[in-house]
């Protein structure tokens, strides 16, 4: 069983760490280098974690379990205008990234206005591609309650972040964190940092619940193992985009064009099966330069085989 770990240290002898990850059958999910500092998010088989921790300590770094590692989360605001961006949406996204999530910040095209706010079907489909979403609302109770249609039909779990606590919206989202609202500056004060912790705890609980549901009918193969296969593809190796392969709870996002590479992806072999037979491969609604691979559960594969 893979677990996601984050290494936080320096670049000194980091090649030894990369070699160890490879030797243990793990995979690097994301890496961030800032001058001499290095942060690596990795998926490692659970029983090999002590070996990684030992080397990390020797290299002068630290390892920590990241509760949102291997997830992709959307942070959604009504618009990308100055009223809603960058604060506090970017602070929330950064907090989730520190817990290992890959985040995307999104603004709706027509999300402004109490009576006129709307979300397009395309936007709903895009949000539904992520493992979960945070919807950021403002400071007026009546306005938040009037805008519930923006997130009530999202199929993935939603954490709603607002100023005042709205009423009657508990069925439309997994969790509500109030006391935030519009900000004109970064959330730096202790009470504001506490609110960010509250938001991240709510999201961690949402993801853990989702993981438990997946465990009840496990995936045919762990997404990290498919990630290892994808790293052998030229289109991924020579991809210039940061994090060309992103892990999600039930699969991966591969940032290569669907039409050009779907055949190649379907023919990848995993445990003696074609990937195309044990996963749904489709183009991303966000852009045709990305492909979504949703790994089927074991029972889904069995059912498919029986047909």
């Amino acid at each position: 069983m893979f677990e996601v770990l984050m290494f936080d240290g320096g670049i000194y002898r980091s090649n030894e760490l990369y070699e160890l990850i490879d030797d243990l059958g793990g995979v690097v999910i994301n890496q961030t280098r800032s001058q001499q500092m290095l942060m690596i998010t990795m998926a490692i088989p659970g029983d090999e974690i002590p070996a990684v921790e030992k080397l990390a300590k020797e290299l002068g770094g630290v390892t920590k379990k990241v509760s949102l590692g291997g997830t992709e989360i959307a942070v959604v605001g009504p618009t990308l205008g100055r009223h809603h961006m960058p604060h506090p949406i970017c602070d929330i996204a950064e907090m989730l990234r520190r817990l290992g999530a890959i985040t995307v910040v999104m603004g709706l095209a027509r999300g402004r206005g109490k009576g006129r706010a709307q979300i397009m079907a395309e936007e709903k489909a895009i949000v539904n591609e992520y493992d979960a979403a945070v919807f950021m609302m403002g400071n007026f109770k009546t306005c938040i309650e009037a805008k519930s249609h923006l997130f009530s039909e999202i199929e993935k779990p939603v954490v709603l972040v607002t100023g005042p606590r709205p009423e009657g919206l508990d069925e439309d989202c997994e969790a509500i964190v109030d006391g935030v609202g519009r900000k004109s500056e970064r959330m730096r004060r202790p009470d504001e940092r506490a609110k960010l912790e509250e938001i991240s705890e709510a999201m961690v609980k949402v993801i853990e619940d989702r993981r438990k549901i997946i465990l009840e009918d496990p995936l045919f193969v762990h997404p990290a193992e498919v990630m290892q296969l994808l790293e052998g593809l030229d289109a991924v190796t020579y991809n210039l985009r940061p994090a060309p392969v992103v892990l999600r709870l039930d699969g991966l996002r591969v940032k290569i064009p669907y039409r050009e590479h779907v055949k190649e992806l379907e023919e990848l072999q995993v445990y003696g099966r074609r990937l195309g037979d044990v996963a749904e491969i489709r183009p991303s609604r966000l852009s045709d330069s990305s492909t979504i691979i949703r790994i089927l559960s074991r029972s889904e594969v069995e059912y498919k085989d029986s047909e």
Partner: protein
Amino acid sequence: MNITVEGTDPYGNEAYHELFRRILIDLGKNRVVEEVRIVQRPADPVFVYSLRLRTRPERRVLSDVATLRDEPEGARLTISDEVFAPAILSILWERYRRDRVDQLSRYEISVQGVSVEEIEDIEVSSGDKVKNEIIDAMWRTLPEGMKARYNLTEGNVLTILATEDKMTEELKEEARAMHRAMGGEVNV
């Protein structure tokens, strides 16, 4: 600067009080504002912002903010209102290049090869700049969806009424009453 917020949403009132205060500080305009009154009814939705500046912003030329005299090398200025020093330097540098404009001391500037007559009427501050910046602060604060607006911006009182729906004569009259109460003039 005194800000009062009245409205039907207690959380929103407190939040927007702080939001507007912070936006004015960030823009460096809190010192030019004397009083602000905000009325907000988000359920309708209607927002009225009325603001009084400490002084009426006026157009200023160089001779208003500095004493000028002719010297053999060119014009010599002694800045009398230091608030305008950055603007004076910036405008003279742009017009005559840095190598011809010397800041001899904190208040003294020499402009080579230029007579007093040539520079005394250069505009240093437009009265509209401060007002436009304050109006920008008000637009930044108002909720983004409130696109129907009624503005009263003559003199040193600025009032903006904003709503998402139809702008009615009744709402306009409410804005005018607030504008007058803040000391503004309304020419209807």
